[in-house]
């Protein structure tokens, strides 16, 4: 009797062992593929991925492609349905909405609702679509933020001193801004530059678009519900005229790209620039000795009735492939990646502001970054798309021509209204 019991127990033991072994063999090693274009952080991401593998056994492969390659790759893979498990999103709501409409990316809302609060609301809003936002996408959140940024003015303290200005008192009002510009010019210093040849130019006037028009009217104009003329957009463009007439633009600013302006700023060749928080890292690389500069919020224009809101928000973010085999595991990984310890390491090594709002400690990040962080709550959360995407081009080119004195604000506004039908 006893031998029978032993035999049965032995059999049960062996069977359980076989069963357990088959479970672990049946479980294939999970491998997640993520495409990204964050060149300077490739090593960092791979290091974090390796950490994760040791912790959980899930393999994560980051593949680096350049920015324009990324766009092409995503398009082609979308058509052929060979997209990776996740990738870093290219562009913002405009581009994101196309991917969402095409059914390529996953609506993340049900998966992240428990921990999405770790990110500031206005940040998540930038990758979230709502019912009436004009984008025609099923409402929900489609991206997981990795880092954030915002754009403000920066100034060179030494050059301010040279022009007789107080290096610890950057301009607070628009009037002061223009006055400072004139003083700098008199002292033989180029007052201001930024990348008007590219998207950066558009961002510089955004705080003033909000200040003059207010969020509602601005978005209504962009959506074509009212004309830019009715919204009073001319007054915004007129600020460029005021800057131009004060001689504030360094020569070549009209078609300058942002890196060139940054180069000039880091070399002490221009006193002020409009740039993003990522510029801290850029300046450090361009000129490690360049330290005596600081940040200031867009100077308040007394004539504008509303609060100025600055461009900024999400830096890099991840989207997840709707047809991925490993949706759960991918999102788990991204959750871990945006946890405080990983975000702290990320921010420290890449000079980008972390998305996880619990990580932001001014004491470890340096004075300029800390100052940028202060502006995060003034970042605008919603900017409607233009009814006709071409209007943006018209505006950008129009700004260039205004700076060159080749077009008037009224002409540009007229063209914008004609295009935005």
């Amino acid at each position, binding site marked *: 009797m006893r031998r029978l019991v032993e035999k049965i127990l032995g059999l049960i033991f062996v069977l359980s062992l076989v069963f357990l072994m088959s479970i672990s063999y049946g479980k294939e090693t999970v491998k997640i*593929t993520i495409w990204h*274009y*964050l*060149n*300077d952080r*490739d090593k960092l991401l791979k290091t974090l991925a390796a950490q994760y593998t040791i912790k959980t056994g899930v393999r994560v492969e980051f*593949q*680096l*492609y*350049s*920015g*324009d*390659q990324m766009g*092409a*790759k995503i*398009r*082609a*893979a979308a*058509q*052929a*349905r*060979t997209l*990776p498990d996740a990738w870093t999103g290219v562009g913002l709501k405009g581009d994101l909405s196309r991917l969402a409409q095409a059914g390529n990316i996953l609506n993340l809302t049900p998966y992240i609702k428990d921990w999405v609060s770790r990110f500031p609301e206005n940040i998540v809003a930038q990758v979230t679509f709502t019912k009436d936002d004009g984008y025609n996408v099923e409402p929900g959140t489609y991206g997981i933020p990795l880092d954030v940024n915002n754009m403000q003015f920066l100034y060179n303290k030494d050059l301010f001193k040279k022009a007789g200005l107080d290096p610890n008192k950057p301009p607070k009002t628009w009037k002061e801004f223009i006055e400072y510009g004139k003083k700098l010019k008199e002292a033989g210093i180029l007052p201001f530059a930024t990348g008007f040849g590219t998207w950066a130019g558009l961002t510089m006037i955004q705080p003033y678009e909000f200040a003059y028009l207010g969020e509602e009217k601005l978005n209504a104009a962009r959506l074509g519900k009212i004309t830019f003329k009715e919204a009073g957009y001319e007054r915004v463009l007129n600020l460029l005229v005021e800057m131009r007439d004060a001689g504030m633009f360094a020569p070549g600013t009209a078609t300058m790209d942002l*890196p060139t302006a940054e*180069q000039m700023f*880091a*070399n002490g060749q221009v006193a002020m620039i409009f740039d*993003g928080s*990522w*510029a801290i*890292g*850029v300046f450090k*690389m*361009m*000129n*490690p*000795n360049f330290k005596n500069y600081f940040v200031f919020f867009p100077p308040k224009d007394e004539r504008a009735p509303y609060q100025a809101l600055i461009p900024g928000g999400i830096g890099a973010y991840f989207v997840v492939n709707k047809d991925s085999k490993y949706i759960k595991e991918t999102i788990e990984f991204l959750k871990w990646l945006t946890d405080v310890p990983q975000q702290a390491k990320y921010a420290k090594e890449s000079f980008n502001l972390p998305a996880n709002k619990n990580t932001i400690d001014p004491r470890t990040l340096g004075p300029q970054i800390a100052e940028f962080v202060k502006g995060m709550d003034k970042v605008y959360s919603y900017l409607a798309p233009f009814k006709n995407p071409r209007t943006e081009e018209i505006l950008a080119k129009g700004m260039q021509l205004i700076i060159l004195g080749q077009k008037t604000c009224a002409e540009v506004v007229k063209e914008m209204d004609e295009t935005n039908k």
Partner: protein
Amino acid sequence: MKVKLNRIFIHLFLISYAITCLFPLVWMISTSLKTTSEVYLNRNLIPKSLNFENYIKAWTEGNFSIYFTNSIIYTISIVVGIVIVSTLAAYAFAKLNFPFKNIIYYAFLMMMLIPIPGAFVPLYVLLVKLGIQNTRIGYILPMINSGLSVSIFILKEFFEQIPKELEESAVIDGCNKFQLYYKIMFPLALPAISTIVIFNALSAWNEYILAAVNFTDPNKMPVQQGLFIFQGQYFTRYELLMAATTIITLPIIILYLSMQRYIVKSISGAVKG
């Protein structure tokens, strides 16, 4: 006296133009020897110190041992493929007769003339359908195709100007079409063939969009991929980028050096014969 003056002017002209051509190379190499901060601060041509280690850094960080091998494989296969296919076709268009000859020729010309935006998208979908995406052959074949139009166009014209008498005497000697092709046409068109070798090698070597779209295995990527690691989202390390670019430019220069003598190779021997 007049002849001497002419010679001096000729050389002056040539040298000044040569300087403008060499200048970028000098600038590239000079930048590649600078340190990071020097690139942005010291705009002179002469670096303060010779940082040759930038080349080693560029080679390793850019993962060039893998990418270089790949590019060499791709470029050689693509160029060989284009030369064979286009010379055969150009010869036929120039010297032979078959139905629909003109229509087919103009169809090839169309390919050269219409810039297709995002041609890589339907191409990639096709590669997936054929099951050859992310393979080397899946890259080489479309690349061969893309070089055919211009090559056929150039070669046809050069074949056409080979004198008929040569063909006729060869036919009398008993050559068939194919022997005509490789014994006579091919050697005589060597200048033109060398030219298209250079053109196609250059475009294959510099290509990166189709490579990025087609390959998801980083070990199959060509050499241009190595350059991107130095171009950050907000900042570019020019000294390493230029070192890498210099490294990449060398093979093409070497290829050109060996091929350019075929462009001026004397054909008087064959003509007299």
